[in-house]
């Protein structure tokens, strides 16, 4: 991958590197040529890596004190909050960490959508990313069940019940998931096992995600393939490392505000009531980051087709590299796509909003229109746009003048005068 072969200086280093090229790997990571025009939206990859590691570390500590038993789980969480040294800090960090993780992943995904980072030659990076995203949702959902509060219990009931929509095998599958005939202790213990397993699968996929990234190298705001290394690129270390660190610190300040000053703002009060199968909460809602999918699920009148629509909304993202037919990557050079992009972002936010509201009256109508647009955007607008849209001239490199001799404003913005 790197252009010149790395040779360690010391004799032992050489001996070791010939047998396991860890030093070559580390040299590759330091020298990795990165486009110098990356903006701050590109720092979220590093932030996400931090989030994953932080969730795993805090999660392992919590697992030392948590008891996965339907009679004891709620009390063990209170034990962590009250009696474990700094248990409140670790738990609030972990609970808010999931929200921050999703916040970062949504920014990361929407950055890729804006700059066309999913397009050739980066389709595999994108697909691995989507698998990671799907596993993140499963991890977050299984984790939300563990405190065994009212929302935990009823969210588990609602979501596992979706599988019963499957024709013929639905009921058996649901019973198999539950480990019984209702959400109960066996459900909790298997969710706990999965919640511990999935983050390590994500970790492995993140390594593949980065590996796949290092083959073609980063996309960039202009969306052209750069010669690497060249004067359009900088070595990852120290330039990108320090920039990512700076962005991470800003992110951590926001994170700290949540953890220390409003740790329960993003949670639901009902989850501080112990699970009770006899009492249904008046309003069952998932965590905020799953609300758009919840809205899609409920906007379809038929249960089975609602479930299909919900899964299709993720699957449509997986095949996105082949739905978007435009050869131009960055929205900077795609005036029409740019409009539709903002429209999609608004659409998803609206879906999230109506997902939190009761599915009735105008909310239901809005949810249906927004769901329809979501699929229209990916299945009709993007394929057609590639043929119809008149794109702007794309420059050949970051430093060379733009094709046709005129300077492009978007390109010069980042350059020092």
């Amino acid at each position: 991958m790197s252009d010149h072969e790395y040779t360690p200086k010391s004799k032992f280093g050489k001996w070791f590197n010939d047998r396991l090229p860890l030093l070559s790997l580390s040299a590759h990571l330091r020298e990795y040529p990165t486009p110098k025009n990356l903006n701050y939206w590109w720092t979220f990859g590093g932030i996400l890596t931090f989030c994953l590691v932080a969730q795993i570390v805090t999660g392992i500590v919590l697992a030392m004190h948590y008891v996965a038993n339907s009679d004891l789980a709620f009390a063990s969480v209170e034990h962590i909050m009250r009696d474990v040294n700094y248990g409140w800090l670790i738990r609030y960090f972990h609970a808010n960490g999931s929200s921050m993780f999703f916040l970062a992943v949504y920014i990361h995904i929407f950055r890729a959508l804006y700059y066309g980072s999913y397009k050739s030659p980066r389709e595999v990076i994108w697909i691995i990313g989507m698998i990671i995203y799907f596993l993140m949702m499963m991890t977050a959902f299984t984790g939300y069940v563990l405190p065994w509060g009212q929302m935990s219990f009823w969210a588990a009931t609602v979501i596992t019940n979706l599988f019963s929509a499957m024709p013929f095998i639905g009921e058996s599958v649901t019973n198999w998931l539950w480990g019984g005939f209702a959400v109960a202790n066996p459900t909790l213990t298997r969710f706990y096992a999965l919640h511990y397993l999935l983050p390590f699968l994500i970790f492995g996929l993140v390594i593949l995600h980065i590996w796949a990234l290092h083959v073609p190298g980063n996309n960039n705001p202009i969306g052209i393939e750069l010669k690497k290394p060249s004067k359009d690129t900088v070595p990852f270390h120290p330039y990108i490392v320090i920039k990512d660190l700076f962005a991470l610190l800003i992110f951590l300040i926001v994170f700290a505000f949540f953890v220390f000053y409003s740790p329960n703002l993003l949670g639901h009060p009902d989850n501080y009531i112990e699970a009770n199968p006899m009492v249904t909460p008046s309003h069952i809602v998932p965590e905020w980051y799953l609300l758009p999918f919840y809205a899609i699920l409920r906007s379809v009148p038929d249960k089975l087709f609602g479930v299909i629509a919900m899964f299709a909304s993720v699957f449509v993202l997986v095949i996105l590299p082949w739905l978007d037919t435009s050869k131009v990557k960055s929205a900077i050079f795609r005036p029409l796509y740019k409009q539709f992009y903002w429209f999609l972002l608004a659409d998803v936010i609206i879906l999230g909003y109506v997902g939190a509201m009761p599915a009735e009256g105008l909310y239901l109508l809005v949810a249906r229109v927004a769901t329809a647009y979501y699929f229209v955007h990916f299945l009709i607008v993007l394929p057609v746009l590639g043929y119809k849209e008149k794109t702007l001239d794309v420059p050949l490199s970051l430093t060379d003048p733009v094709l046709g001799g005129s300077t492009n404003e978007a390109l010069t913005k980042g350059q020092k005068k």
Partner: protein
Amino acid sequence: MKNNLKLILIIFLISLNSLNSNSAEKSEDLLNPGWSFKGFFGKFDRASLQRGYQVYTEVCSACHSIKYLSYRNLYEPGGPEFSKEQAEIIASQFELTDGPNNDGEMFTRQARLSDSFVGPYANEKAATAANGGAYPPDMSVLVKARQGGASYIYSVLLGYEDPPEGMSLDDGVHYNKFMSGNKIMMTKPLSEGIVQYSDGTSATEEQMAKDVVTFLAWAAEPHLETRHKIGFRAIVYLIIITVLVYFSMKKLWSRIETEV
């Protein structure tokens, strides 16, 4: 074009929002006496916590348990901060069943500092049966388990009124303008002078409600003061290091002819 789209979007979102507030049940604005534990440097008022403990013990604890609180919490820093001796005396006033002893017998003993608060009923079923079918919820995390938190519970305590004309209530059901559905099984718990404060504070309904809710807020979040203290330091530290990293970054990138 882009601005038009944004405008349409904003108008749409605002109209959604106003729609929401119209369709929602007409709910009263919660009462807020001004909580000392809110905000960046929020701390509990010790005297209020001690009075609140008194209201809890003399009034609430007749029906409500608070099982995740231990007697030792009463003298630990950040709480009511009774002296250790006072906390021991408080604990010794309660009895609980322990055992089995070496003869295999269960026995009754005085509570110790390490015990959690002794509740009024043996179990949830007993509590429900004794209260006309309505279980008085455990109060350990009650403040965190209700939308509106401390202000909501304060409001419910002071929200008892005569039902409006034409509304008939079943036996044992009371009207409360802050409770959802306006119906509550709990009889009005506070009335002027129901407790006698030893520090001379006059026991008005508002005062007792404020004190007991402060106590419950602490019970739900006993490490709140530490959290605020560490949080402030952590954020100041993060800001300082962010500024340092920012200037280092600027210095490094000055070698590259691109803005960072």
